[in-house]
């Protein structure tokens, strides 16, 4: 497809020095720590946002903070752009490289360093996957709360880069609310510690600033996160509605009534069918929209909360209510939901939007989304975190058809603008990356953007860190 989002022009001086750079970097890394053969670079040309692709100059796979620092120090000295990469699961192209960039892959920093039940913290290297943290602390009775759908594969380093959310963030907050400290390597190779096992910052909340900075302020190599006691019980319940509007209104009423379930997930009919085909979770196929509402606590607590929710759902004409009967069933219900994006691959290519809107706008935005996509002659499946208004329309298209691909991209942009205009934002949890970079001016004024860019430049005056992402290419402050 023809690309509408531009990357920075590769630095000619860097490209010219390619072989020297590769030889120098190889010296800084352990055996098999540098990928540079052209054919081996191809699999690194994109992440889970496959519409855009660029080959990197080389891929470094360091095994320690010191090696990350050495590579950054070198790249900084010679003005070589750097693109950090965790598991490469970004849905906005956050880890897509560029021709003059060295990718620093954190996949080999995969050790769990310390589990501290007393202080309820886990300290892990950046390449540890999100789910591996929960698995590691599970025997002690804990879990790590933010649970992006890609939690099986995505790394904590990537989660911090994108300030990732997930289904259960309705109750537990997103990454930034569960992050206590990081080891951060700055662009010049300086290693700093932010936070720790204590709460709040001594000075400015740089930890809060780094979280969600999309690899532009430095590279996180270690993180200390809050772990929480596992709830006594958890019960996902399926609520089937005739229409998306009814389901949307029900969500707003549940939250408005003062009940905050752990999660409220929404699926429309296409999404239900896609997920059921993969997970066989027993989602009702005869409804127009489905809510997965999860409550947790003791049996009495769950019963009390559920009876209130069921009552509200009945007022909105709920057609089926199904409580899951076993842990296996609950696991399947979540497996289906969390595999929704991937499972969509069974029927079509897709791009996944991530706008967030105020709850009162949910029904309106859902309806308009359908109209926008239909206007381009495409189909859409909706599966998202309804409790916090974080929408994920999946625009289905055929990637081998350049016309359709272009339409999908345009429709996506219109949907995101719609979210902003409805009082929301471009991205709730996936990040701006390359995908939404040129829409930033729709959400922010020039002054707002300039201020963000100025702060960014305080960390990386030469704009070497993941430079083609997040901020529009024009109007960036000079070094």
């Amino acid at each position: 497809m023809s690309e509408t989002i531009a990357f920075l022009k590769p630095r000619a001086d860097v490209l010219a020095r390619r072989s020297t750079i590769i030889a120098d970097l190889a010296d800084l890394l352990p055996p098999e720590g540098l990928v540079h053969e052209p054919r081996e670079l191809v699999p690194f040309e994109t992440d889970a946002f496959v519409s855009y692709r660029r080959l990197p100059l080389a891929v470094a796979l360091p095994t320690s903070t010191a090696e990350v620092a050495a590579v950054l120090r070198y790249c900084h000295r010679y003005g070589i752009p750097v693109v950090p990469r965790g598991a490469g699961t970004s849905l906005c192209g956050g880890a897509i490289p560029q021709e003059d960039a060295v990718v620093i892959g954190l996949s080999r920093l995969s050790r769990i360093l310390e589990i501290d039940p007393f202080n309820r913290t886990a300290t892990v290297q950046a390449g540890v996957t999100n789910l591996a943290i929960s698995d590691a602390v599970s025997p002690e009775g804990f879990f790590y709360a933010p649970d992006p759908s890609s939690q099986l594969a995505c790394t904590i380093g990537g989660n911090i880069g994108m300030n990732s959310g997930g289904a259960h963030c309705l109750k537990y907050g997103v990454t930034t609310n569960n992050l206590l400290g990081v080891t951060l390597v700055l662009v010049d190779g300086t290693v700093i510690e932010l936070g720790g096992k204590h709460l709040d910052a001594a000075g400015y909340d740089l930890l809060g600033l780094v979280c969600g900075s999309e690899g532009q302020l430095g590279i996180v190599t270690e993180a200390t996160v809050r772990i929480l006691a596992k709830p006594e019980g958890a019960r996902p319940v399926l609520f089937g509605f005739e229409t998306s509007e009814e389901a949307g209104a029900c969500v707003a009423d549940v939250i408005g009534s003062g009940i905050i379930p752990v999660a409220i997930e929404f699926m429309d009919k296409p999404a239900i069918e896609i997920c059921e085909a993969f997970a066989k979770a027993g989602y009702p196929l005869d409804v127009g929209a489905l809510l997965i509402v999860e409550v947790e606590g003791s049996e009495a607590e769950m019963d009390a909360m559920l009876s209130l929710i069921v009552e509200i759902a009945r007022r909105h004409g709920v057609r089926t209510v199904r409580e899951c009967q076993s842990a296996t069933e609950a696991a399947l219900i979540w497996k289906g939901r969390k595999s929704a994006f991937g499972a969509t691959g069974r029927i079509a290519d897709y791009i996944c939007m991530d706008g967030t809107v105020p709850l009162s706008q949910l029904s309106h935005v859902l309806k308009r989304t359908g109209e926008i996509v239909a206007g381009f002659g495409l189909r859409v499946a909706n599966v998202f975190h309804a409790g916090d208004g974080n929408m994920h329309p999946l625009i289905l298209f055929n990637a081998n058809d350049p016309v359709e691909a272009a339409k999908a991209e345009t429709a996506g942009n219109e949907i995101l603008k719609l979210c902003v205009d409805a009082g929301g934002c471009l991205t709730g949890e996936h990040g701006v990356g390359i995908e939404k970079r040129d829409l930033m001016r729709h959400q922010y004024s020039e002054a707002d953007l300039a201020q963000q860019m100025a702060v960014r430049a305080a960390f990386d005056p030469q704009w070497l860190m993941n430079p083609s992402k997040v901020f529009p290419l024009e109007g960036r402050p000079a070094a």
Partner: protein
Amino acid sequence: MSAILVPVCEEEAAGMIRAAAAAGRRLAISGGNTRSGFGSPVSADAVLRSAGMSGIVAYDPAEMVMTARAGTPLAEIEETLLDNGQMLSFDPIDHRAIMGTDGEPTIGGVFATNASGPRRLSAGAARDSLLGIRFVNGRGEVIRAGGRVMKNVTGLDLVKLLAGSHGTLGFLTEVTFRVLPRPKTEQTIIVSGLDDEAAARVMAAAMGLSVEVSAAAHLPESVRGRFLGGHLPEGAATVLRLEGLAASVPVRAARLRELFGRHAPVSANENEASAHLWRQIRDVAPYADSTSRPVWRVSVAPSAGFQVVAALRLEAGIDAFYDWQGGLVWMRMEADPEPDLLRRAIAHFGGGHATLMRASAQMRTTVPAFEPLSPAVAALSARVKQQLDPAGIFNPGKMAGL
């Protein structure tokens, strides 16, 4: 200080700041002036107050989000929330009693100081509730950051940066924050007679259970009498707060009583008594003693709190009690603030930070109020400040070393 500037709108504030920046006039930033004793002394030419910009701008209880101008009195906000069965989840501390200030705390001041109380342990700090801000930077430009939805990762999180920056990076004009339903019922379990270390273990054990303790504090014998009019049971009190549905709080309470009752006397306080106790803990009641004896606010790992205190006791006259599962230590020094001793102990037990909350005017000029940062972090912080307040006109000196 000569002038006191009280803009009534954001535009006026921006104009005043532009003028100040042009003239190189330094501004002391304040809201209700109840927390102004914070930090190191500010040397400014004028005071810029947000108190003139007041009022709730938007509030839809069903969205659990409120937007208010920075100078809105906290009391007004809490009252409005209460009317709708909601609350600020982070328990903002009222500093008046301990700092000996009067005036009306503002919502802007709450966020500018990231003022969080006991529930911070479970529900996050002020910064975690803050969704969006408008502020005027040191160039006099109005900047909007964040938004009004719960999940938003669009661009750099300047919201977090400004929260807790004590007016040194920008002048907050409007804040949008998340609110939560007020729990229907609450109960505090009191485990009596534990020493500091045993209390830390009990609190850690409680937080490791699935009963959702929302706050955990330890009030040693030396301060017990200062709470609830002396009506807490004999001995040090380790207190655990449970909140939620009427169907669940008693069940969870019974579990805690059963577990800890095997080793120590356990009692309970319900609803208003419980809420009152936590307000007193929040507002540091024992050290609201109308003196200027130094008070430190120390944040360390929960396992380190009692160790820091024990180490200091060997070398200085101190009194202390604990919040946040033992990780927040309120410490009153008998005489000298002993910053070096304290900060060495913190570093020794795994790191954290100590803020000098109260001290005599003389001490405040000599002791850095905020924890000194490592050279690399200090340099980075200074570069960040440079980008928001290039002329250094906001609260100069307050976060000395930054």
